[in-house]
């Protein structure tokens, strides 16, 4: 068996992280959620803590709940976690460590017509910041300061990971929850169907347009310690990397880049590499070119 290609390695890392985040497999059968101590910790990717398999907490859910407690408590822990995760990994988390990102990538493999990135998708990519500010920060804070009633608005009205991992799995396994499902559940399932459907046609539609966690990590794009970078001494600004990329990037490593590394294989000048990692062997197409030139 030959060496695994980089895309395959990345898929395996994505799969491994999804399995690690949801290691409580018996929860799916029982229709109950894990209650161990690890649930006090957060995972870096989007993974609902009401998923029967989840062994740790969701960072977005934790942030909203911390903001619900805002009048009496500053959300030190979750902010510290997000800063650390963003600083070290940034949107590498999106590209390698997010189960919902993996699901969307797999859906995109379904052979259906694809909508490529364009000016409209680029404008829509700003929507995730608006959703983050409104649903993750403003609404929970507003309700915390006015009524004292906790309202994790993004989790309640939008989050498709919650519906898919927690809602559907628990409602199917739990008759009491099934009987309690009403309009909100129907709304969330509709949102989930829309997002899953769109992911079949638009690469990572949720990540690009709606995910507040990706929006938060994108703030660290320029300063994250690990990730992809361009060697300006070698780059000829041919734009091949940007054209190849399925995300709405302007340059490799910008706020829309999920650090997946697929651009490395299309750069003819070996200008794209991982930060702080020993240079790997040249991408396949450059090795083949060198062999041809030597003949």
């Amino acid at each position, binding site marked *: 068996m030959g060496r695994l290609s980089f895309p395959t390695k990345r898929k395996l890392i994505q799969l491994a992280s999804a399995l690690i985040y949801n290691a409580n497999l018996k929860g799916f059968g029982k229709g109950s*959620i*894990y*209650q161990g*101590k690890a*649930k*006090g*910790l*957060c995972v870096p990717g989007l993974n*609902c*803590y*009401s998923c029967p398999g*989840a062994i*740790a*907490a*969701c960072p977005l*859910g*934790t942030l909203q*709940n*911390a903001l619900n*407690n805002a009048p009496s*408590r*500053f*959300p*030190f*822990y*979750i*902010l*510290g*976690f997000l*800063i*650390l995760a963003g*600083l070290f990994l940034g949107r590498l988390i999106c590209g390698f460590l997010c189960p919902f990102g993996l699901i969307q990538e797999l859906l995109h493999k379904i052979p259906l017509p694809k909508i490529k990135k364009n000016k409209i998708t680029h404008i829509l990519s700003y929507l995730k910041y608006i959703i983050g500010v409104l649903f993750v920060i403003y609404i929970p804070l507003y309700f915390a300061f006015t009524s004292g009633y906790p*309202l*994790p608005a993004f*989790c*309640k009205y939008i*989050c498709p990971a*919650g*519906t898919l991992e*927690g*809602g559907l799995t*628990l*409602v199917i396994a739990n008759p009491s*929850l099934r009987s*309690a*499902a*009403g309009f*909100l*559940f*129907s*709304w*969330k*399932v509709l949102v989930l169907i829309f997002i899953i459907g769109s992911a079949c046609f638009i690469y990572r539609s949720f990540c690009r347009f709606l995910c507040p966690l990706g929006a938060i990590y994108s703030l660290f794009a*320029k*300063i994250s*310690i690990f990730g992809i970078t361009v060697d300006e001494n070698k780059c000829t600004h041919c734009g091949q990397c940007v054209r190849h990329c399925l995300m709405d990037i302007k340059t490799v490593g910008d706020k829309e880049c999920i650090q997946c590394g697929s651009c490395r294989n299309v750069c003819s000048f070996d200008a794209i590499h991982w930060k702080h990692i020993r240079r790997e062997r040249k991408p396949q197409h450059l090795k083949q070119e060198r062999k041809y030139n030597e003949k």
Partner: protein
Amino acid sequence: MKKNIGRIVLSLIAVVFLCAGVIQGDLHTTWLKAIRICLECIGIG
């Protein structure tokens, strides 16, 4: 150079925040919330 200084400062802030959060009991609060089925998350509440 400025970038590295920024990274160091942010790392320190993050570590201080994490420690403050642990002292404040945020880990326990997070755990308390995460071990109960989030009815809002699953579309019930």
